[in-house]
């Protein structure tokens, strides 16, 4: 939706400002063109800089191993091959890691959306209770105390809960996210209390109001958080690193790290496996672009 602002409005501001007098319009247009060319060039130069590492990476994945290190380097693969991809699929057990990651990401996402919606609603609509306000500060504090900071104690908690090397260990600790709770809290605060009062008068129960009226209303937030959460879990490295020990339970990121960490990096395999690991997110991005790049929602959650 934000993209609509990018419509070509070259001439739009000029006539509006200078009325119908063509004599005044022309110099202004010329001046605009003088700004448009350098600024657009600069923006696209930056865009090329941003795109290049990825494009180079992508093209390299289709080069055979011998061509990867052969000087002079060529931009396009001379003899394109999918050998790396086949190797990743057969020898690297890509499908196993892929399905492990998918299972974790999907389960956590569903649970995160529910937990965050419920908690965000409670924080938004029951602010009369003092403990609700205290708990809000607690959630705020979790952004200060991320898992990275307390790796070893977290590992010991996971171990003592019997969650080491289990899928539960990957899913359960990631359900609580401050960002998710804030997104829903922000949204529910913007919903007028009158709706709740009306439902109460009609005899609806509190939890029923939430599930039947409020949750369906928050669909855009649900979508956005679901996409965010899926991306977080898909790309997460630190939880799988401390929770999983068994190679059969590795997620993609850990498995990729094990290729990079080897003495001799198998570049054709690494490039192909990395490219394949990005695909699900690219697909989600293409389908749900308007939820992902909606800066209004993103900005709201950080306020």
């Amino acid at each position, binding site marked *: 939706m934000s993209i609509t602002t990018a419509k070509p409005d070259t001439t739009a501001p000029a006539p509006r400002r200078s009325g119908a007098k063509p004599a005044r319009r022309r110099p202004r247009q010329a001046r605009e063109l003088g700004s448009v060319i350098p600024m657009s060039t600069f923006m696209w130069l930056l865009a090329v800089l941003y795109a290049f590492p990825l494009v180079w990476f992508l093209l390299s994945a289709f080069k055979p191993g011998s061509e990867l290190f052969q000087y002079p380097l060529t931009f396009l693969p001379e003899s394109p091959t999918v050998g790396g991809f086949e190797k990743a699929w057969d020898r690297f057990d890509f499908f196993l890691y892929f399905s492990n990651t998918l299972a974790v990401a999907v389960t956590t996402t569903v649970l995160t959306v529910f937990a965050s919606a419920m908690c965000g609603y409670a924080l938004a609509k029951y602010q*009369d209770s003092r403990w609700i306000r205290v708990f809000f500060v607690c959630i705020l504090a979790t952004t200060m105390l991320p898992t990275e900071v307390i790796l070893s104690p977290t590992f010991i908690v996971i171990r003592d809960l019997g969650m080491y090397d289990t899928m539960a260990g990957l899913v359960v600790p990631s359900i609580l996210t401050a960002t998710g709770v804030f997104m829903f809290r922000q949204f529910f605060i913007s919903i007028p209390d009158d709706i709740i009062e009306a439902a109460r008068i009609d005899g609806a129960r509190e939890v029923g109001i*939430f599930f039947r009226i409020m949750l369906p209303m928050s669909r855009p937030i649900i979508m956005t958080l679901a996409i965010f959460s899926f991306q977080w879990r898909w790309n997460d490295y630190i939880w799988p690193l401390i929770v999983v020990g068994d190679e059969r339970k590795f997620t993609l990121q850990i498995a990729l790290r094990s290729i990079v960490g080897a003495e001799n990096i198998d570049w054709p395999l690494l490039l192909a496996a990395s490219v394949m690991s990005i695909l699900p997110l690219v697909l989600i991005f293409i389908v749900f672009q308007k939820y992902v790049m909606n800066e209004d929602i993103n900005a709201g959650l950080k306020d």
Partner: protein
Amino acid sequence: MTATAIDTERLAGPRQRPGRARRVQYRFAPLALAGLNIVLFGLFFVWPGSLGLIYSFTDYTGIGTFEFIGLDNYEQLFGDPTFYRALTRTLLFAALSVPLMYVVSLSIAALLVSNYTRGKAAAKIIFFFPWLISPIVAGVIWRWMFGESFGFVNYVVSELGADPLAWQTDPDLALMVVVMAGTWGGTAFNMLIFIAALKNVPRAYYEAAEIDGANSWQRFRHITLPSIAPTSFLVILLSSLGAMKEFAMVQALNGGGPGTSNTFIIQYIYETGFQRADVGYASAVSMILLAILLTIALLQMWVNRRRAA
């Protein structure tokens, strides 16, 4: 169960004054709704957090029993050169990457809302794309670009007639690559936040300034920057915290190398806690890092408040 409790309260409701009734009415519903997150908060933040604090005063190794050794860990820490090296390297990384991240994301956001640029929709997708890439894959991508004997960058450098640069074996050049890769990966989100902020600056300000003859730099300096100050604060805060926690990308990019020269503080905690199994010592480092993160946050909030006042 929850619902019946509420119903009894509701029956008693009309007898009380309306203002008071609302305050005591719904005690169980919020508990039921927030309950899951309260439990998770206790299990995965309070518990490990307090364990960390306790362990930092012990010689715990992860198994068996442990003894309280007072402030020994902290004393040892302050005399430990590897800890200082990790800490100062992380601070240096933050000092380099946060300003770069700020300038780059703000410039890109400004270009993406400008009336003078063309092809904004496509460019926005390109700038946003790195958000999809995991830190590990981002590390791999930049390692591939900056490989010393095979990377594209060194190929270009030698084609231009210069000597290939030691992107992997020179500690400072390796840090530069980490800064670039971090900025590349972190721009997308900050850019979105800035775009929202820039769009909210009232157009009338710019028009008034234009009539008064302000040039575009003056308009940016005196209208845009003050108007988006809260957003700038947010971006700088989040980026500094993020920079202090940098870990996964470096793991794939150069593993903290060459040697241990670019070992950041989280990697140091990880290696002490897991590879050397020195949980007590690692917990002490965690507590120091926590104190640093809190200081950064409070300091920036203080500056922000003073500026606003």
